């Protein structure tokens, strides 16, 4: 009887991460585009977002989307943090990179010599992912502060009062959108990463010979 003792390599992205990733695409998409529609009701900067990008068609509709999708974002965020800490995902993949590793990987990235191994994060990736996780946490905090500026007055004062918190909320949105653009461009350069975020592509060995 033939025995199958082939060593199985674990997926580059566990199923939990793959599911959460696509939940976020939807939830953050809803938050950003309804947010643009809300911003357009009273722009605090001398520009508006193009009307066709808005979600909800008018302020009331956009707020309904924003205050609905926020639950999806919050719940999936909590699930991710719980998973990240308990599964060892944070410890294994998101150790804070040293400045030397960042400058080394950034240099190889800019000179197109940085290899990409499915299932492993180089220093630049770590920095970007840690950054966007921090930005999302700050975005939830500023969002909650301008949602409940009286009941959560202490949180609001952390961001310098209502108008200031509103501007920080807008600024972080731009950072998250900027991350998303870089992220999508990199996926376009390495299309197999898109496949690995949908089906359980096995992780690649860390060092290829």
């Amino acid at each position, binding site marked *: 009887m033939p025995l199958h003792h082939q060593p199985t390599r674990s997926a580059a992205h566990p199923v939990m991460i793959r599911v959460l990733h696509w939940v976020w695409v*939807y939830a953050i*998409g*809803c938050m950003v*585009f*309804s947010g643009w*529609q*809300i*911003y357009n*009701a*009273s722009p*605090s900067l001398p520009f508006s977002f193009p009307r*066709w*990008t*808005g*979600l*909800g*068609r*008018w*302020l*009331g*509709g956009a*707020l*309904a*989307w924003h*205050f*609905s999708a926020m*639950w999806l974002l919050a719940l999936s965020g909590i699930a991710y943090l719980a998973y990240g800490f308990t599964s060892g995902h944070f410890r294994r993949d998101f150790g804070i990179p040293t400045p030397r590793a960042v400058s080394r990987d950034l240099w190889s990235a800019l000179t197109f010599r940085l290899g990409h191994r499915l299932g492993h994060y180089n220093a630049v990736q770590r920095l970007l992912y840690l950054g966007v996780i921090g930005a999302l946490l700050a975005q939830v905090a500023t969002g909650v502060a301008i949602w*409940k*500026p*009286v*009941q*959560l*007055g202490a949180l609001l004062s952390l961001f310098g009062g*209502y*108008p200031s918190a*509103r501007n920080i909320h807008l600024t972080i949105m731009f950072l998250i959108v900027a991350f998303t653009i870089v992220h999508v461009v990199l996926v376009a350069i390495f299309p197999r990463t898109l496949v690995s975020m949908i089906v359980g592509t096995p992780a690649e060995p860390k060092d290829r010979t």
Partner: protein
Amino acid sequence: MNGPRRLPVVKFQDIKPELRQLQRRAFLRTALSLGGLALLTGCDLSTNSGVDAALKSILRFDDKVQAALFSRRCLAQTYPPSAVTRPFRFNAFYPEWQVRGVPEGWRLEVAGSVSEKTPWTIAALRNLPQVEQITRHICIEGWSQIGRWSGVPLRAFLQRIGADLRAPFVSFRCFDGYSTSIDMASALHPQTILALDFDGQPLAAEWGAPVRLRIPTKLGFKSAKNLQAIEVTRIFPGGFWENQGYDWFSGL
């Protein structure tokens, strides 16, 4: 003699390319509309679609969360007189030139679950205890401004008219066609007042003469101007904007 005027005949074949182009453009716009993440661009609370129904039920859930977060002891931040925004921005569901003057023989009517239903004159309201506040008025659109109002605490007024303080809703009807309603807990909050003065002067027409609600624990559209009647009720009253889709609680 002239024959009947012939209308130019346009055959489908003649405009087919143009039609197709228009069609393609419309399709492209739908596809591009990033709001259409799942072809949901049409969902804006104005239809009876399943998505709109889901959004509305989540808003009702949000209202419960907001009511649970609300604390009667938690006060809105107050500011020094120097922080008052000048000039103060006018806002209503109509432009400023349509502001209505106080009707002849105006009285503030009270209705619903109250034991004393005599209408109130301004003089009678001024005889009640007065409080002043300098607070931030935050509009649902995102802008905000700091103003100074004084008047009768709504709590004192409701007690005075023998209102049933266990009734869940207090509703406000205005003589400019506006209406809104709030929960009883927020109505009894110490900073919820029937404002008679704005910035040290009796309310001018554009600021809600002769009496308006001022409630700094809720979004601006809840601070109804030009009041005509107050009703304490057990039946959900809705309101001008609330009926169109703004979330009812709208607490800050």
